[in-house]
């Protein structure tokens, strides 16, 4: 089995996901080559061939051009499996490559059991094995599902590739997230509100517990999208990555994008009415209760200590 690992480059930097791809290749015990639209000055530590296209001429985001480049690398490397990260780059590009190759794609792979990729279903409550019927396969890997034990080493053998194609789409630069206000990354205790709080007024219950614990309150994405909390309080892949001594997840189901932002917390308490909520998998303590009745009682007792 030959793999082509598709590494990522953004805002002038190689992204760390290349390591996850190498960890996956290691697990598969497969021969692999790597692909990158980037620069020669910033290549992954990797033992093998790196098909490198120049980001200056190809652009950081230009899916039509990147697709052609990946296809060129697939044909040169004779890859049977093309592996992406399940990231904004990967889920955008992978189906385009899969379609061109007439290959099946399996998304958000969390493990491979006896050669069969496994993907999550229903917010990770269930898993499924996916039987692929095509010769070539395209995979996207769930972020964090595969990781290297040691820092990678090696110097890749660079094979340059280029594209003459264009695109009707045009990329007009990046817009950075708004900075300022609370800095959750410095908080020792974070109590986060999820959709389970039900209505904006209930932020007060969460903020009250945070105050009793001398911490800050955070939020899951739906709470921020609904504008019940500011974006700088959002924990997760598209918000903050935090690692407090104590993280209390209130009415949060535990979607992978939320977990990615808080799973390095030292101690995790979850308060949820659903005993099977996936947050239970990362929680040291899962309190099965309605947060609206339980948290005020808890806060009062803590304040009385």
């Amino acid at each position, binding site marked *: 089995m030959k793999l082509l690992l598709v590494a990522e480059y953004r805002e002038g930097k190689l992204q760390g996901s290349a390591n996850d791809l190498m960890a996956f290749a290691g697990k598969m015990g497969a021969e692999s080559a790597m692909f990158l639209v980037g620069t020669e000055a910033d290549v992954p530590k990797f033992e093998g061939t790196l098909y490198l296209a120049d980001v200056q001429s190809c652009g950081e985001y230009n899916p039509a051009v990147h697709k052609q480049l990946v296809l060129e690398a697939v044909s040169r490397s004779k890859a049977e499996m093309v592996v992406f990260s399940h*990231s904004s780059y990967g889920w955008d590009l992978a*189906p385009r490559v899969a379609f061109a190759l007439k290959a099946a794609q399996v998304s958000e792979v969390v493990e491979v059991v006896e050669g069969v990729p496994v993907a999550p279903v229903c917010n990770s*409550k269930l898993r499924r*094995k*996916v039987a692929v*019927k095509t010769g070539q396969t395209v995979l996207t890997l769930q972020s964090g599902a595969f990781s290297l034990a040691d820092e990678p080493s090696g110097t890749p053998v660079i094979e340059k590739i280029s594209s003459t194609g264009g695109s009707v789409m045009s990329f007009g630069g*990046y817009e950075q997230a708004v900075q300022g206000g609370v800095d959750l990354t410095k908080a020792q205790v974070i109590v986060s509100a999820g959709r389970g709080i039900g209505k904006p007024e209930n932020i007060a219950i969460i903020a009250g517990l945070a105050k009793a614990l001398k911490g800050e309150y955070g939020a899951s994405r739906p709470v921020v999208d609904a504008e019940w909390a500011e974006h700088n309080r959002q924990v997760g892949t598209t918000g903050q990555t935090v690692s407090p*001594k104590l993280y209390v997840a209130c009415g949060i189901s535990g979607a992978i994008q939320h977990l990615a932002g808080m799973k390095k917390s030292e101690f995790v308490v979850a308060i949820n009415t659903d005993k099977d909520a996936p947050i239970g998998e990362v929680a*040291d303590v899962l309190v099965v209760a309605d947060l609206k009745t339980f948290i005020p009682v808890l806060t009062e007792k*803590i304040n009385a200590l």
Partner: protein
Amino acid sequence: MNILVCIKQVPDMESKFKVDGAGRWYDGADLAWRMNEYDEYAVEQAVQLKEKTGADLTVLCIGPERVKETMKKALAMGCDRGVHVADEASSTKDPFSIASIIAEFAGSKSFDLIFTGMQSQDRGSAQVGVLVAEMLGVPCITTIVGFAYEGGTISVKRELEGGVKAKVTSPVPALVTCQLGLNTPRYPTLPNIMKAKKKELVSVPVADLLKAQALAETSALYFPEKKGGGLVLEGDAGDLADKLIRILKEKTAVLA
């Protein structure tokens, strides 16, 4: 303008799931069904565009008879007509087959814009939208959190990791996949729910539109092994609070 929005019906994620008899999917009995969350943003954006440009808006959904309930919500939100692709076996179809059905339907209709969700909440492949665009040969922009249309060009914001956004423009025809937070999906009002009952909602047998062979299939569905093994506390609020305080004192320094 001619717009298409694709929606999927999914179970409420807080449901108690059971694996079905064949061991390949979840059991559909006793579940509460709703519109895929991402698709609510797609419908809202399509309706807003229709309100602005006077476009004609079709909503399409592939699935068994029950999906019509979810389609009625989209009609009540403002879609003009519904096309239900009747398929009792839609849950066994891979993203490639679902996309082929949509592309087959859309192929002859010359839609200026197609809206889909970025992913479905149950199977979550994030493939169908992109595949439809590739099949139709139109540009596709995924994971949008900002959308504007002006004189044949769309200007969108794609969401990247860490809250960074990429600004992208494209001429129409195009397809966009919608991310959470793109807008604030409206709640259908009672008068609009009544009006929706009179809107056209046709059913087309899936066999009329399915020309492709599946590339993959789910061979087994199962519950992951519980690894976390954290402590689960249940009971009366007062007792629970006492227990939790004791644990926090023992295991963390935050109450010291």
